[in-house]
């Protein structure tokens, strides 16, 4: 599947379909890292089934606009009516640093496990900013999972240095960043390919 979405010849229809499939798998894996409690249930045969589990605590998705929104469909496929917060982060042209433009969260976000959605971890700048915003809204660092499709070592290093307790769930780790801060070999601009806004 990663070969399909990395291929520059892939049509948009296929790109969206396989990206959604990968994202579903990533979300499923992310959910495995949330705590569960044992739960005994009674089956329709009237017998007890021991060893059942139930998720403890509630979750919420947080997508970094615009590319992170492309992962919402995959999240909804797995967690039907999940609450979804949104963050818009853009690079400040004056300082070249990521800057928060917009954030909208469920009011009780501090009590939830957060799945932070952004398809690519390149320099880590916007992800670090997003975590900072979540923490300022009262979400503990260890209750955040960062879900993405593709990472590079530079981004992981920068991210882990600031937030060592945030777990990262990813599909693949690539070689490096190029001088334009694209992941190499990478897959191009995920948001543009998903929404069809590339030229």
């Amino acid at each position: 599947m990663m070969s399909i979405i990395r291929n520059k010849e892939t049509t948009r229809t296929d790109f969206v379909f396989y990206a959604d499939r990968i994202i579903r798998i990533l979300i499923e894996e992310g959910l495995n890292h949330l705590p569960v409690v044992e739960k005994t249930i009674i089956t329709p045969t009237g017998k007890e089934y021991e060893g059942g589990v139930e998720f403890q605590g509630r979750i919420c998705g947080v997508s970094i606009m615009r590319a992170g929104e492309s992962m919402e469909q995959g999240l909804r496929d797995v967690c039907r009516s999940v609450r979804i917060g949104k963050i818009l982060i853009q690079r400040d042209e004056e300082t070249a640093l990521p800057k928060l433009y917009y954030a909208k969260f469920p009011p009780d976000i501090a009590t939830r496990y957060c799945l932070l959605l952004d398809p690519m971890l390149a320099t880590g700048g916007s992800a670090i900013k997003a975590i900072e915003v979540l923490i300022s809204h009262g979400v503990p660092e260890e209750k955040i999972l960062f879900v993405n499709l593709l990472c590079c070592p530079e981004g992981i290093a920068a991210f882990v240095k600031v937030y060592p307790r945030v777990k990262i769930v990813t599909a693949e780790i690539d070689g490096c960043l190029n001088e334009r801060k694209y992941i190499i070999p990478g897959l191009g601009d995920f948001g543009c390919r998903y929404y069809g806004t590339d030229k």
Partner: protein
Amino acid sequence: MKSKLVHHVIAAEGRPPWYRSDGQNCDCYIVGIAGGSASGKTSVAQRIIKNLNVPWVVLLSMDSFYKDLTPEEVEIAHRNDWDFDSPNSYDYDLLLETVTKLKQGKTVDVPIYDFETHKRVPNKHHTVYGANVIIFEGIFGLYDPKVLAMMDLKVFVDTDVDICLARRIKRDVAERGFDVAGVLKLYQRFVKPSYDTYVYPTKRNADVVIPRGLENLVAIDLLTKHIQRQLQERKMQSRWDMARISAPEELPSNVIVLEHTKQIMGMHTIIRDIHTSRHDFIFYADRLATLVIERALNELPYETRIVTTPTAKTVEGLGLKPRVGGVSILRAGGTMEIGLRRVIRDAVIGKILIQTDPSNGEPQLHYCKLPPTLCDDNTFIFLMDAVVGTGAAGLMAIRVLLDHEVPEDRIIFLSFLAGPQGLHAISSAFPKVKIVTSFIDPVLNTDTLYLEPGLGNFGDRYFGTENE
């Protein structure tokens, strides 16, 4: 060599309406700055921007409008024998076109000039959109009469020529790999004669002359105050009091309301019910969105298509002629994307984030990413929002599309629910935009700006961000 600020819209906050309530753009404010080479034009421009402290200011440099050189001319240029300081080195037609469009509030592509090859970088440019103020600077900034005519304020930076020369030597030796003799040769041959013959005389076109450039803080301060005052005066008394305007009972003719079948009534009953759970809300919202999209598709042109069936007979059918692109007004309009995708699998989707400023109820543009194919001759745009209340966000989004050269008659504005005020506001500003909605609610609450009976805050219910 120039600052990173060049050509970038500085958008520290949302952009308030830049058009009147009839949907027409107000001209943006243009400041022209001229002066000799190394006189400190860019620094003055940047200081003005910093002092102005208003968002959505663009710094446009005349360097972007150098003409492409032919291979022979490039060779001359590499020998440092080419006269870049001649007024003929610039493409005034392109400059005029760019400044005119910016003045009208349209999106423009500013070329990127490569000083190595002395050509514009092919297929690359800076797209500039959404400037309330443009600061245009260059040695011939006050030279072309047509460009001059568009400026609201003309400034000449009159720095002592010795200081300019000293700066130029320092800069060219440090940054451009010249030696002092080379700089002086160019200066004597081209820079100085051009300054005396062409640049300095443009001083008489200026409204304000700033002696000593950036050092002259008093002059820059006075200038900034003047610009601020002028901006304040022309600040549109837009008064987004649309809620208080009583709308005629009859709907505008460009509004299409879905037929109220039992299905539609049933779905509306569910999504309006305060007790509906979120997963039901999302499920039925997606289903309803799909029907709104299907209805809107009937408004597009179709062409005859003849197909052969497996019985080997032919059938005269229809095929959709244009392509369809979606643009969602975030956050709530994003809820229609799933419906759009169900019907047009690979629809290209652009996004516009508009939020209401809580202090005055005005809409503000925060973010806009539109695909380049949106303005194709063969593309219709489905502009999506959940609920049309005052119509302010829809009006702004349509204005953004028009500023990006999308023809008005190729925009179809879709929503789940709309009120008469918003529909009248939009269709009186943009009568050629078709509006498709699944339901009309009569009352717009002037305090909450929610439609009544309505369905509450659609985005909050869909994304689960409402207060319990």
